[in-house]
């Protein structure tokens, strides 16, 4: 086997993607089913001069990566539901202070300790609304190891492009399952480095003054420019402000920089969507079963298609609305009580034709489950 072909867990595919993207600082706290990410990185990072630290909890992990990112490093943490809950306040801080970072949530069953070793996709809305206050987030997912690798690289790229935390919502099945991964050659996937200011030493640098294109160049904290960073509403200097204009301006900026670029941030795969009478919308490990249904029914002449979402937030509403126009039935396949279903229903012209095929018992939804639910919807009985 060639060196760059591996047979690995999804969690390792994420590790490979992160290292490919230039990760050089990781802080985390062990939790099933994400722990392998920390374990592998504790081994791999120092080999290339990077740093790994096991913190005292997930709050501290999230805080530590924010601190390290500010000093110019590419950073990540990884956890599962209970730890993701603990991270929310600091996640909001990273949003407010516009500090790039990547947070992996390998989802398990919840709420609470829930089902530590079973699959779920119950944290989709937590990723969207876990932190308090109005805000926008980027959350991505993938259904196979090659895509987990690529979307992890993408997460780092988007974090730098938009100066924002990016959440990777994987799940227990993809995280633990073993599958082939081909690690791309260096340079095969473009990487976005940190946009650093060209303001020279000794000249005033405004950490929160967007350029014309909306991006905010950074200056490595502790370097040649001294500035203030705060989670309070702040002006272009980073100084606290409760001036209504400043407050409204900052909040709009934080929302707009992401929501206005939803189209650019949308990542997805499509299978037989063009002429689909039944459109399945799915993501993560559930999309594997959905794809199986499509591949299985097409040869039998059933016009079933799959839209596999990789960007969950900002919700690619234009894409979904457009793709849902022609099909007679839209079925969202997910392992929760309908979290993406809600977003689809809100977005489409005709919400009555949108149905849910789900499993919430800690088991992977199977192609048979999906088939059976579809038959019920179609009035064919099981």
């Amino acid at each position, binding site marked *: 086997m060639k060196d760059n072909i591996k047979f690995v867990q999804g969690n390792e595919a994420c590790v490979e993607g992160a290292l490919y993207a230039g990760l050089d600082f990781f802080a985390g706290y062990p939790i099933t089913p994400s722990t392998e990410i920390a374990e592998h990185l504790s081994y791999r990072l120092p080999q290339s001069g990077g740093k790994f630290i096991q913190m005292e*909890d997930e709050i501290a992990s999230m805080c*530590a990566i924010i*601190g390290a990112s500010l000093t110019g490093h590419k*950073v990540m943490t990884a956890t599962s539901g209970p730890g993701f809950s603990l991270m929310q306040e600091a996640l909001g801080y990273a949003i407010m202070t516009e500090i790039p970072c990547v947070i992996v949530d390998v989802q398990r069953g919840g709420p609470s300790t829930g089902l530590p070793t079973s699959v779920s996709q119950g944290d989709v809305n937590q990723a969207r609304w876990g932190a308090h206050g109005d805000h926008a987030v980027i959350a991505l997912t993938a259904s196979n190891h090659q895509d987990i690798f690529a979307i992890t690289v993408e997460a780092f790229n988007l974090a730098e492009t938009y100066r924002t935390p990016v959440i990777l919502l994987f799940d227990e099945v993809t995280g633990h399952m073993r599958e082939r991964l081909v690690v791309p050659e260096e340079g095969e996937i473009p990487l976005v480095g940190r946009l650093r200011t060209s303001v020279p030493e000794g000249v005033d640098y405004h950490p929160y003054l967007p350029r014309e294109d909306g991006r905010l160049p950074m200056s490595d904290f502790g370097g*040649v420019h001294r500035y*203030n960073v705060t989670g309070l509403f702040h002006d272009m200097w980073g100084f606290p402000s409760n001036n209504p204009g400043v407050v409204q301006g900052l909040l709009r900026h934080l929302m707009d920089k992401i929501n206005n670029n939803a189209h650019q941030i949308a990542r997805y795969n499509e299978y037989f969507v063009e002429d689909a009478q039944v459109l399945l919308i799915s993501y993560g490990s559930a999309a594997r079963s959905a794809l199986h249904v499509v591949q299985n029914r097409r040869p039998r002449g059933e016009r079933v298609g799959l839209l596999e979402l990789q960007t969950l937030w900002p919700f690619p509403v234009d894409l979904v609305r457009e793709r849902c126009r022609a099909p007679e039935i839209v079925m969202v396949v997910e392992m929760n009580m309908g979290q993406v279903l809600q977003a689809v229903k809100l977005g489409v012209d005709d919400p009555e034709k949108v149905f849910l095929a789900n499993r919430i018992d800690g088991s992977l939804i199977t192609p048979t489950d999906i088939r059976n639910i579809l038959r019920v919807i179609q009035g064919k009985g099981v």
Partner: protein
Amino acid sequence: MPVKDYIRERFFPHLWCPGCGHGIVMNALIRAIEALGLSKNEIVMVSGIGCSSRISGYLDFHTLHTIHGRALAFATGVKMGLPELNIIVPMGDGDALAIGGNHFIHAARRNIEMTAIIMNNRIYGMTGGQYSPLSGYGTLATTAPYMNIDHAFDVVQLSIAAGATFVARTTTYHVQQMTDCFKKAILHEGFSVVEVLSQCPTYFGRKNKMGSAADMMAFYRDHTTPIGSKKKKENPDLIERGIFVQKDLPEYCRAYDTVIERAKGKGQKG
């Protein structure tokens, strides 16, 4: 450099009440940094939330004003990203030892080089006078209207037990000693803790009938004594001041360099 050159005048007027001890701490800190001849660019200040934490905004260093209780966790990431800089973390007693208590003991245990300043006013100033883990049994607070039955930590004992390699205590009355403690703490290669008894006349003082700010400072004068003094033997209730611990143990970031060396050796072997 004059004191005012360390200050961001844009941030003034400050939000501290008249007589608050936190300004005295800021003054002593500036004098310590000045005496050490450190440039403003060599200092990173990371703080949480509270009246005390506001120091970071007022000073012209690299300043990171974070969330309540988590300053040391942020500072850990900053330090690992930039091991060559001096990190100073000013905290209130609630910030450091209630919500942030876990981060405090773990930062101390790791012996990561940074200076934790605990401005102990025995109360939550910023939120208006609720009891803190340092208020102590029998005190009054807005959330202990009858009497506080929580026992207080001894910050020095706690720091030592957690593994801090430099531990000192002083008060706002003893500014010379405070400056001296800060100087030594900043130079210390490891996790250093300086507890400063700092008066909050507005809440702790008023609730507990401690008098004016000056009265509260006189209290520090009369109820503290240098470590191991004769007075302490005669009156065990006196609070000791001075440097309790100053020892050398491997510092976290330097130890991490060893990890990197080992990993690189292993990486080459395949």
